[in-house]
C-alpha cells in the first residue's frame, strides 16, 4: 500500500529543524558513568511538604477537571504572590490563567496574538523552543544576536533596529536559559521605553525569577506603562523544583487572557488538578525552600565559573538561572567538537551552543543544577580533557 499521502505531515512542521538537543541526547543515552551537566531542571526533588500535599489531594479524591482558568484558590495565591513580590495587581478572575507549564502559556500567547506573517522579536541565544513555537503559531521569529554582547544582553538600540511594520511582539526571557543573562531595573526601563514607543506587546518569560543572584529580580509588568502591554509568564518548575508537575501561569490584560483561555479550553481543558493542589502548597508554604535552593545554586555558580575560567574556558558570571555558557574558542575547538569529544573521552555531557542558536558554534551550555560532588568531579574531568587537547 502506498502510504505517502496518509503519512504526509503539515508543511510547517516538516520544515522545522529537529532540536539540536535531541541529537545529543541520543548520543548520551546508553553510555555508562556519564556525569551530565546537560540537564535543564533542578537536581532538587520537589520539597516533601509539596509532594505530600499532592498525595493528600489524591487521597481525598481530587481527580477531576478544574475550571479552565485553574482552581480559584491557586489563582488567588498567584495574584497574591505577584503583588507581594513585584507590586503588580492582577484580577484573579480574568487576568490569570493556570497552564501546563510556561511552555503552554507561551504557546497560547503566541497563537492568540499572531496573525500569519507577524514578526516576533526574540534573542539568540534563547530557549530552544522559542523560534519553533513562533513559527508554529504562524509568526516569523526575528532573532537579535547577543552571542558577543556583554552578558549576552539585548540592548535598546538592537531592539529598535529590528522593529518593522510587521513586528507584533517581543519575547524576552530573563534570567535566561541558556545564558543566565538578566537585567537591572534601568536596563529594563530602557527596553520598555522602546516597546512603549513602538506600541508593542511583550511576552515576558520570567520562569527563572527566583534564581537571581546579583540583584533582586525586577518584573517587567511592574515598570510604568508596561503592565497593560505585557503577558507575564511564570511557573513552578524552576524555583520550586516542580518540573514534572508541569504547572505554569500567565498574567495579563483581560482581553488577551480571554483569547488565550479560549484556546486553552479547546486544547488542554485545564492543568492537572493534583499539580494545581501542589502549586497552592508551594506558594503558601514553599518560599523558604526556594530561598534555600537559591543559596546553594549561587555557591555552585561561583564554584563552576571560577573552575571553568581556571581551566581556560572563558566564562562570564551569569546573573541568574542555573546555566553557564563558556566559550571553547581559546582551546581551539568548536562547541560541538568539544561536547562530543568530552562525552566520548571523559564521560561528561554538556550541550553544544548551536542547540540554542546558530551563533553558538564556539560555546557549550553547562547546567550547575547538580550536586557539588558531581560538579567537582565534572570539573576534574574537564580539566583533564583540556590538558589532553592543548
Amino acid at each position, binding site marked *: 500500500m502506498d502510504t505517502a499521502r496518509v503519512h504526509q505531515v503539515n508543511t510547517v512542521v516538516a520544515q522545522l529543524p529537529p*532540536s539540536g*538537543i535531541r541529537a*545529543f*541526547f541520543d548520543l*548520551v*543515552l546508553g553510555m555508562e558513568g*556519564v556525569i*551530565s551537566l*546537560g*540537564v*535543564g*531542571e533542578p*537536581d532538587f*526533588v520537589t520539597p516533601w511538604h509539596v509532594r505530600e500535599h499532592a498525595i493528600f489531594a489524591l487521597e481525598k479524591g481530587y481527580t477531576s477537571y478544574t475550571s479552565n482558568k485553574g482552581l480559584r484558590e491557586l489563582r488567588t495565591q498567584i495574584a497574591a504572590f505577584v503583588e507581594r513580590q513585584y507590586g503588580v495587581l492582577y484580577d484573579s478572575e480574568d487576568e490569570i490563567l493556570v497552564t501546563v507549564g510556561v511552555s503552554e502559556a507561551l504557546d497560547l500567547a503566541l497563537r492568540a496574538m499572531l496573525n500569519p506573517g507577524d514578526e516576533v522579536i526574540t534573542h539568540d541565544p534563547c*530557549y*530552544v*523552543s522559542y523560534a519553533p513555537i513562533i513559527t508554529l503559531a504562524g509568526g516569523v521569529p526575528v532573532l537579535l544576536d547577543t552571542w558577543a554582547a556583554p552578558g549576552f544582553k539585548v540592548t535598546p538600540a538592537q531592539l529598535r533596529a529590528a522593529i518593522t511594520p510587521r513586528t507584533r511582539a517581543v519575547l524576552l526571557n530573563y534570567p535566561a*536559559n541558556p545564558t543566565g543573562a538578566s537585567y537591572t531595573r534601568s536596563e529594563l526601563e530602557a527596553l520598555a521605553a522602546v516597546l512603549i514607543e513602538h506600541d508593542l506587546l511583550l511576552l515576558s518569560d520570567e520562569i527563572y525569577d527566583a534564581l537571581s543572584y546579583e540583584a533582586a529580580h525586577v518584573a517587567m509588568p511592574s515598570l510604568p506603562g508596561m503592565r497593560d502591554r505585557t503577558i507575564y509568564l511564570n511557573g513552578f518548575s524552576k524555583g520550586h523544583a516542580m518540573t514534572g508537575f508541569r504547572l505554569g501561569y500567565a498574567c495579563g490584560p483581560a482581553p488577551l487572557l480571554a483569547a488565550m483561555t479560549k484556546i486553552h479550553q479547546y486544547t488542554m481543558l485545564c492543568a492537572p488538578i493534583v499539580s494545581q493542589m501542589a502549586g497552592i502548597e508551594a506558594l503558601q508554604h514553599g518560599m523558604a525552600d526556594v530561598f534555600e535552593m537559591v*543559596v546553594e545554586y549561587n*555557591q*555552585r555558580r*561561583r*564554584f563552576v565559573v*571560577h573552575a571553568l575560567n581556571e581551566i581556560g574556558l572563558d566564562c562570564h558570571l551569569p546573573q541568574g538561572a542555573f546555566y553557564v555558557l563558556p566559550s571553547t574558542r581559546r582551546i581551539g575547538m568548536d562547541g560541538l567538537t568539544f561536547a562530543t569529544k568530552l562525552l566520548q573521552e571523559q564521560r561528561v*555531557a554538556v*550541550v553544544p551552543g548551536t542547540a540554542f542558536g546558530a551563533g553558538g558554534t564556539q560555546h557549550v551550555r553547562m547546567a550547575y543544577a547538580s550536586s*557539588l560532588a558531581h560538579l567537582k568531579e565534572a570539573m576534574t574531568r574537564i580539566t583533564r580533557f583540556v590538558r589532553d587537547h592543548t
Partner: protein
Amino acid sequence: MDEILKLLVDDARTPPAQLAVMTGRPEADVRAAIARYEQDGTIVKYRAILNPEKTGEANGLVRAWIEVSITPQRGQGFDAIAARIYQFKEVQSCYLLSGGYDLLLLVECGSLREVGAFVAEKLAAQENVTRTATHFLLKVYKEHGDVLQPTETMPRLPISM
C-alpha cells in the same frame, strides 16, 4: 547562620579557598572567620558522621535512648545531677527536656547487657534519679538531616532543554 558555617556543617573538609569562591568572599576573610568560630566555640570540633550499618559495628554497638526523671537539687536545679550523669563515657548526648520526664540520654554500649548494667548500676543508682525508661534503637532512618536508608529516586534525563 553564616553561609560559611552552613557549608562546613555540610562538608567540614571544604578547603577555605573553595569556601571563598563559593561565598564570594576573600579567602583571608574566610580563614579569619573560621579561626574566630573555632576560638569562640561556635565550631566545637570536626568529626565524621558514620553510618552504623556500614561500620561493622552494627552488631556490636547498642544505642538506647533513656528517659530519666530526677529530683532537682536546691540551688542547683538539674545541672549538678545532669553533670554527674553526662560524664559517664556511655552517655553520648544528654538533654534537659520539658514534659513527662527530665533528662533524655543517648547511650552507646557494646551490648544489651552493658546498657542494662549502666542503667542499673550507674544511672538508677544515682540518689536523685527517681525513674528511668530505656528505649533500644532498632533502625536508623535519618540522622543529622541525612537519610541513611538508600531511597530510590527517579533518574533525570541526561540531557534536557
